[in-house]
C-alpha cells in the first residue's frame, strides 16, 4: 500500500474512533503514529501539541497535517487531513438529513430539552478546567475577567460586537504591555 493510502486510512481510523474532540485524539495519534508506525517521534508529537495549542483551528487537523507532512510532504499532509475529516463528515451529513424529523417525536424533543441544559454545563465545566490550567499572572487574570464580563454583556444585551474583535483587542493589549515593559526595562526603570 502506498504511503499516501496508508496515511489516509490510518487517519480515517483515528477520525472514526475518537469521540469528544481534540484532546482525545492526541492520545489516539500518539498510539498509532508514534508507537505503532513510528512515523513521527515522541518529541515531534510534543511539538505538534504545542503548535496545536498555539494556533487556531481543530486540534485534529493540526496533528494530521503535521504528521502527514513529516511522513510524505504536502500530499501526505493532504491525505492525512482528508482522512481525519471524512468519517465525521459522513456521520454528521447523514444525521443532518434526519435530525429535523427525529426532533418531532415528543420523547426525543424532551430528551433534547434536557441535553440543552447539559451542554450549557459542559461548556461552563470546560471553562473552569481552562481557568485552572491558565497562567496565574495578573495580566492574564485581568484579560480573562474583562473579556468574560464584556462577552456576558454582548450576550445579554445583544450588543453588536463580535468575539473576534474582543480577541484582537486582548492580543493588542498584551503586545503593548510587553513592548512597554521592554522599553521601561531598557531605561532601567521597572523591575519585573
Amino acid at each position: 500500500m502506498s504511503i499516501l493510502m496508508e496515511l489516509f486510512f490510518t487517519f480515517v481510523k483515528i477520525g472514526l474512533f475518537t469521540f469528544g474532540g481534540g484532546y482525545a485524539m492526541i492520545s489516539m495519534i500518539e498510539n498509532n503514529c508514534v508507537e505503532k508506525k513510528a512515523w513521527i517521534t515522541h518529541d515531534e508529537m510534543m511539538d505538534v501539541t504545542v503548535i496545536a495549542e498555539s494556533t487556531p483551528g481543530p486540534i485534529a487537523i493540526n496533528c494530521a497535517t503535521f504528521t502527514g507532512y513529516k511522513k510524505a510532504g504536502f500530499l501526505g499532509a493532504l491525505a492525512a487531513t482528508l482522512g481525519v475529516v471524512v468519517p465525521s463528515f459522513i456521520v454528521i451529513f447523514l444525521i443532518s438529513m434526519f435530525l429535523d424529523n427525529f426532533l418531532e417525536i415528543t420523547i426525543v424533543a424532551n430528551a433534547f430539552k434536557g441535553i440543552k441544559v447539559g451542554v450549557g454545563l459542559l461548556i461552563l465545566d470546560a471553562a473552569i478546567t481552562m481557568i485552572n490550567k491558565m497562567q496565574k499572572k495578573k495580566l492574564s487574570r485581568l484579560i480573562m475577567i474583562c473579556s468574560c464580563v464584556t462577552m456576558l454583556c454582548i450576550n445579554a444585551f445583544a450588543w453588536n460586537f463580535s468575539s473576534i474583535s474582543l480577541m484582537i483587542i486582548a492580543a493588542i493589549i498584551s503586545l503593548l504591555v510587553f513592548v512597554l515593559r521592554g522599553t521601561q526595562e531598557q531605561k532601567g526603570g521597572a523591575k519585573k
Partner: protein
Amino acid sequence: MIYIELFLGFLKVGCFAFGGAYGAIPLIRDVVLTYGWIDEEMLTYMIAVSESTPGSIMVNLATYIGSNQAGFLGAVIATLAVATPSFLIVLLITTLLQNVLKNRYAQAILRGLKPCVIGIVLATGIYMVVSNCVGAISDVKLSVQAITITAVLILLMIGYKHIAKKKLSPIILIVLSAVAGMVVYGV
C-alpha cells in the same frame, strides 16, 4: 450567495478558533447567529450531537450547518473552510517558520489571546446555563424543569468527581441530561 457566506463564515471560525473545541463554540455561535443560519436552540442540540459523534467538534458543526443551509455542497464548503486555515498554518510553521512560536512578540500575542478565549468560553457557559433557567433579559421566564435538571446534573457532576476522582465524561453527561429531560419534561 449562501456558498460564499458559508465559506467566509467558517473561514473566520477556522482562523480565530483558539483553545480547542470549546474555544470555538462561542465563535461559531457568533457567526451562525449573525448570519441567521440556525437558531440558538438547534445550535445547542448540534453541539451535543457533535460531542457524541466521532471527530472534531468544530468540523462536525461546520458539516451540519453547511448541510442544513445548502445541502451536500454546502457541507463540503463549510468543512473545507473550517479546516483550511489550520492546515495552511501548520504547513507554514513546519516548513518556513519553525521558530515563529518561540518569537517573543508572538508569545506576547498568545498570552493575550488565551485568557481572552477562556473569558469568552466562561461567559458563554454562564449565559447558556442562566438563560436556560430564567430566560433572556428581554423575556424573563422561569423554567422549573430546567432549574431541576440543572441542579440534578450539577450534583451528579460534583458527586462523581468526589467519588471517582475524575470528571464525568461529556458523553455520559449528555446521556444523563437526555434521560433527565425525558423524565422531567415527560411528566
